[in-house]
């Protein structure tokens, strides 16, 4: 039977498998997930992967969700079809996410561990589980949990990996240590075997995983073989009815996460200089650029992006500004704490009309918060940007594909409107991978905005860099252009860029700078401001921004399938606020639901500030985990049933 047969609601098409693999950080969870994803990818399936981990290097719990399907999926699932565990902690943390009909893979040893022996389990969670088990007269141990799972109709597969290793040693005549190194592969293979997934895909995946390293490949291929044999020998799979089938496709697909998409988008957009200071979940973007400093050009040459790791975020943003003044497309990327240190530089950029793309990867806030967990909690602060009134642009991407094109487009905005473009992303996207087709480089225009010609030295007087114009845009020049010398300063300035305290010049410059945002609102097309999904005419409206998109889209589809017309407004341009369009779109009176991954509904506040409009329901989540389609669907159901208050908090104690 095809995957997910136990979801009887008919919403999911035939193939929709949710697999979770978890274990201590550093134990190979990511490798296992990658091999699994490769296997599925090779089998022509679509993937949606999501990684959760602690702010820790080694030892603490991490897990990887892979959703496998025939058609692309845009959210993770809270209910699992198969859970593969590397340790007892993983078992403990996720066993309740496996419903009737689902499966669990664990080692025999992990099958009976007392909860209070699992050192990294949060006391709160340990207490909750203990109470849960006590209610059911079960011991406070993994044995109790497994018993409960079996009682709930979950298939539990206790694996003796040592047996597989033993057979591998026999088959290949290799030392134990070497055989033991295939544990990740075995775990994957046991899982795919249970899913009755053809082993050839797993074997092909190994070739992709270690290209050219035939010895390793051979070893792991044999491990797959042995794992399949072991599963066949040990288990009667007829109890476990979830299968995974291939779906060949001619399309080449990439498996890309948000960090990678943004980095590539920046390269496509002409990024020439990136300075950064490491911080989760932003670092991987810059690390990617560092690893790709030289790359090809479409006119057959090679070129580069210069990446500098700085001493702090203040240096990162101001160094990027220095580079931007020379005309180089420049950027920096950070997260909340780093952004807090960049705000002074951001204000300077706006004051001097310097094009700068600042990529903000949000994470659990406030303060250090939850560095490796997601949130959309930096919106209010980022939208304020810096002290004073100034033009600031802010865009937000909803998924990997948008992230790529937005990252490129941000530079066009920055050049055209000569100010900072804040690109809002989050940890959820940073560690979400999706299978997608190649990005289309023909779709990446380069628009550099108004640029002044170099002048003869005889053109007396300093260049009027900040000449007051009707549009607000003053043709810019780059440092080093002949004859265009002028000044830039964070102080209020004359058209030449000299500090001034003249009240009239001050007013003129303030007004000119802010006028650019009116221009942006006039020029930027609707679809770059707000994207409309679902039934355009529907009264029932969900409004959101950023990476909640995927979960909402799934809900909308599901509602549609149930005959409920709903519309989803995905805000893409947050600032300047597209007042006209949003007011128009929200003019029809149907119930409005705003969905955000933060405590206070920060976008809802911005919306009300600009339009006075309040949502009928605000759905928020702020426990550091992304919103899933499942939980959102339940909340929407409650709302539609009239059973929800104005504020709905999505909670899930088991993540």
């Amino acid at each position, binding site marked *: 039977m095809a995957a997910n047969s136990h979801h009887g609601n008919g919403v999911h098409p035939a193939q929709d498998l949710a697999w979770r693999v978890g274990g201590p950080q550093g134990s190979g969870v990511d490798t296992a997930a990658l091999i699994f994803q490769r296997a599925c990818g090779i089998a022509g399936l679509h993937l949606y992967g999501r990684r959760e981990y602690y702010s820790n290097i080694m030892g603490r719990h991490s897990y990887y969700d892979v959703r496998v399907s025939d058609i692309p999926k845009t959210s993770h699932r809270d209910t699992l079809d198969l859970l593969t565990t590397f340790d007892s902690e993983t078992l403990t943390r996720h066993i309740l996410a496996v419903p009737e009909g689902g499966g669990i893979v664990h080692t025999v040893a992990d099958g009976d561990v007392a909860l209070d022996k699992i050192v990294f389990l949060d006391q709160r969670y340990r207490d909750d589980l203990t109470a849960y088990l006590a209610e059911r007269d079960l011991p406070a141990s993994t044995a109790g949990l497994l018993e409960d799972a079996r009682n709930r109709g979950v298939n539990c597969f206790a694996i003796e990996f040592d047996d597989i290793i033993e057979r591998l040693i026999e088959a290949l005549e290799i030392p134990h240590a070497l055989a033991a190194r295939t544990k990740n592969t075995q775990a994957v293979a046991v899982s795919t075997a249970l899913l009755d997934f053809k082993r050839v895909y797993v074997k092909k995946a190994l070739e992709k995983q270690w290209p050219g390293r035939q010895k390793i490949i051979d070893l792991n291929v044999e491990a797959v073989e042995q794992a399949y044999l072991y599963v066949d020998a040990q288990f009667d799979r007829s109890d476990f009815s979830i299968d995974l089938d291939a779906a060949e496709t001619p399309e080449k697909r990439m498996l890309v996460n948000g960090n990678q998409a943004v980095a590539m988008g920046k390269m496509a957009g002409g990024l*020439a200089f990136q300075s950064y200071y490491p911080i989760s979940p932003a670092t991987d973007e810059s690390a990617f650029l560092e690893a790709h400093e030289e790359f090809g050009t479409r006119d057959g040459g090679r070129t580069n992006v210069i990446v500098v790791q700085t001493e702090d975020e203040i240096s990162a943003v101001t160094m990027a500004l220095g580079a931007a003044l020379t005309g180089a497309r420049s950027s920096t990327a950070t997260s909340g704490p780093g952004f807090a240190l960049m705000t002074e530089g951001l204000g300077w950029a706006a004051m001097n009309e310097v094009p700068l793309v600042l990529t903000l990867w949000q994470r659990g806030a406030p303060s250090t918060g939850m560095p490796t967990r997601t949130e959309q909690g930096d919106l209010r602060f980022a939208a304020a940007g810096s002290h004073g009134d100034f033009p600031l642009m802010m865009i937000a991407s909803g998924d990997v594909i948008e992230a790529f094109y937005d990252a490129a487009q941000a530079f066009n905005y920055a050049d055209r409107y000569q100010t900072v473009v804040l690109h809002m992303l989050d940890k959820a996207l940073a560690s979400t991978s999706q299978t997608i087709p190649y990005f289309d480089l023909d779709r990446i225009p380069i628009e550099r905005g108004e640029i002044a010609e170099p002048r003869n030295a005889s053109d007396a007087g300093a260049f009027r860099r900040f000449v007051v114009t009707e549009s607000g845009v003053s043709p810019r020049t780059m440092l080093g252009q002949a004859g265009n010398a002028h000044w830039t300063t964070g102080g209020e300035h004359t058209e030449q860029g000299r500090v001034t305290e003249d009240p009239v010049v001050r007013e003129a410059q303030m007004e000119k700078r802010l006028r650019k945002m009116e221009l942006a609102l006039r020029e930027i097309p609707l679809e770059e401001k707000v994207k409309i999904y679902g039934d355009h005419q529907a009264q029932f409206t969900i409004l959101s921004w950023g990476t909640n998109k995927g979960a909402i889209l799934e809900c909308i589809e599901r509602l549609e399938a149930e005959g409920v017309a709903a519309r989803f407004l995905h805000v893409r341009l947050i600032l300047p606020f597209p007042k006209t369009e949003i007011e128009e779109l929200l003019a029809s009176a149907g119930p409005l639901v705003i969905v955000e991954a933060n405590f206070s509904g920060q976008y809802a506040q911005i919306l009300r500030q600009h339009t006075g409009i309040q949502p009928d329901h605000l759905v928020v989540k702020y426990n550091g985990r992304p919103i899933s389609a499942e939980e959102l669907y339940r909340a929407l159901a409650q709302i539609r049933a009239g059973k929800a208050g104005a504020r709905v908090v999505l909670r899930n104690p088991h993540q």
Partner: protein
Amino acid sequence: MTTAIDDAKTFKAKDFQQAHANDWCPGCGDFGILNAMHQACAKLGLDPSKVVTVGGIGCSGKAPYYMGTYGVHTLHGRPIPYATGIKLANPDLTVLIAGGDGDGLGIGAAHFVNAGRRNVDLTYILMNNEVYGLTKGQASPTLPLGLQPKSLAGPNVQGKINPLMMAFASGFTWIGRGYSFHVKQLVELTQQAIMHPGLSFLDVAQPCPTYNDLHTKDWYAGKDLEEVRPRVRPLPDDYDGTIPADADEDVVFEKMNRFVKMAHEWGDYIPTGVFMENKTVSTFAERIRARVPTYAEQTPAGRAIALPDSTTRTDLTSVFEEFVVN
């Protein structure tokens, strides 16, 4: 290091000056420093359009307005990262930094220290008046412990940072000291600092007649000494701070010792001149080129990013391939 001398047109010191009114106090030492910058640029035959003067925030930080070059008046404490971005993105430019002691060694110290790790080809002129001039005379990080210039409510409770030692410990490859009213020497030092193909630090003792009533022009001139004699005097004749590219360990240690001793001289003798020129260290540009050969030709400021049809010039096909999952 400067760009090649422009022989099409020779620029004079006045080409580097600005007619715009200067609002430093009468007698401020900053005038001497500015004057030296004008002359040094002219003597080096620089083209003003290819020079960028980067200022911090402070009285000193206003220097860019009085230069006929591109001027970037940055944020307090941040001239180094701005200048670094400028130079790395457009290596053709000569980039001068003019900033105060508070700007550079107080709020900006993290950049100062870490600039030393990079050795980008910049010239950093520290206008060192031992006070925060523009905010009205508070102690700066170079004011000695226990002194009380007129704005302080009591004796300075914080010690003094030795800028030369700090530059040395940080890794600056050219270190010098001048005095703002010894303009002739200062011009030479400024020229050398600019010519040095790496990170140069020129500490300039600068009287602030308005707030530093202790270390005045007269004090620097030693007028209070038993035997009147300028405190600011050149390094000993036999002092040679150059560390050749092929220096062995012993030479380096000997140079270092002499440097440290001279860098700690301060009081009745404040040595001026070139304290160190370290030729053993590669520049940041060299290091980048080693990693990214195309940087030699394709600089961030100079390289094309669009094709003639205004679509991107970037080709990512081979990068995409890395991600193919099937």
